[in-house]
């Protein structure tokens, strides 16, 4: 069962999302990864405005392949979110409501999410070709010289996501794996492990 959600995210949308929920996200999101985050933080340090207003927005941790001619976007899957942990709490304070990526977040990020009602979605890592087809428009907003690492505005339609950490701090990465510990050995049929 998918929950359909539109950006910008409303506080009540974020509040009702629970870890484990399957979401189809549509609307405008912004892709940014390591280098763009660093630039945005530097801008804030210098007292400058950010290239976008983060209020109620969603940042997608990703950097795409170039699009083939005639295509809107190239492969565009998520990158490891943990590398953006250093920057995320400050952005959440500025109103960022959603983050999309893959992998765990640290306690600083989770605390900021609880304090300011934000949600962390996991996209499936390694399905960039699949995700490319869900992108309806792509436009570089800032830091064009960073290539794939630029800040890019995307319009997505029905982007399949899983709520990995909700705004109460429930964390799928902590709760789920332990349910399956030791389960592989109990299977009657196991994977063919090949000949010696």
């Amino acid at each position: 069962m998918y929950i359909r959600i539109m950006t910008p995210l409303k506080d009540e949308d974020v509040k009702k999302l629970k870890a484990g929920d399957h979401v189809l996200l549509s609307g405008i999101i912004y892709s940014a990864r390591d280098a763009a985050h660093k630039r945005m933080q530097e801008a804030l340090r210098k007292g400058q405005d950010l290239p976008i207003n983060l209020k109620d927005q969603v940042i997608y941790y990703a950097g795409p392949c170039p699009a083939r001619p005639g295509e809107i976007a190239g492969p565009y899957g998520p990158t490891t979110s943990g590398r953006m942990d250093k920057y995320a709490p400050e952005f959440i304070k500025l109103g960022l409501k959603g983050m999309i990526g893959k992998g765990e977040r640290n306690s600083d990020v989770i605390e900021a999410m609880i304090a300011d009602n934000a949600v962390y979605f996991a996209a499936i890592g390694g399905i960039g070709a699949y995700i490319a087809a869900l992108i309806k428009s792509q436009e570089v907003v800032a830091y064009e010289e960073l290539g794939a690492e630029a800040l890019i505005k995307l319009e997505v339609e029905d982007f399949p996501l899983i709520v990995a950490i909700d705004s109460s701090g429930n964390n799928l990465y902590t709760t789920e794996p332990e349910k399956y510990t030791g389960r592989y050995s109990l299977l009657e049929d196991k994977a063919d492990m090949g000949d010696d």
Partner: protein
Amino acid sequence: MREIDVKIICETVKQLFIDSNYNLCQDIRNKLNEYKDLEVSEIGKEILDKIIENADIAAKKQIAICQDTGMSVVFLEVGQEVCFIGGDINEAINMGVRKAYNEGFLRKSVVADPIERKNTGDNTPSVIHYNIVPGDKVKVQIMPKGFGSENMSRIKMLKPADGVEGIIDFVLETVGKAGPNPCPPIIIGVGIGGTFEKAALMAKRALLRPIDKRNSDSFYGQLEKELLKRINDLGIGPQGMGGITTALGVNIEAFATHIAGLPVAVNISCHASRHMEAVI
């Protein structure tokens, strides 16, 4: 002496990098299908389904499976009777990579300096490993290596007394710490023995072997099976969201080592473990 024009190496490198980024290896595809049927987690099954669907889309549209088209790693096994002509072999390899990443619409993910971090714009330079062997052939093996999984790789200089249990513990600890970050289901290359750098290199080379082929030494073949079972018992599952499909394969390479040492390196690859080879 057999003369080989480096232009042939350049074109081969280009083609291999494009093909491997577009087409998921058959051994990986087979394992994904097998585990999709075995997986007990609903989210896990759904994720494996989407990974397979993604591979179909990439192959059909001839686009990259994953946007992290990697840093280019090239292994060149050069027959000692071969003489390269027509230019610098290193430059020819880098030219092949440059062409592949530009003409193949692949992402340029390499920065010139690890601290300054300015993108080189063409995914070069490559990491190139040469090996001289008997004969007059050249074997080109390539691997576009994504860094979500590379970042989760580790090396440890164990004590000889740590033995096999020490190796197993270190591999399990590495996979456990990596959790969802390297895009499970993963493939694990393990290098045991040698020196510090030899262990790391063996771990990387181990990833070149198809995952349905066990180490020809039955001790290490068994250890691969034992490790795979114990890794899949961790429960991490597809994308770290729980399940029995944490790894699709474990490949070990081993080498002689010093009386005082037991180096172990663990190189992790994501499910989009891309590698290809050609013999010239």
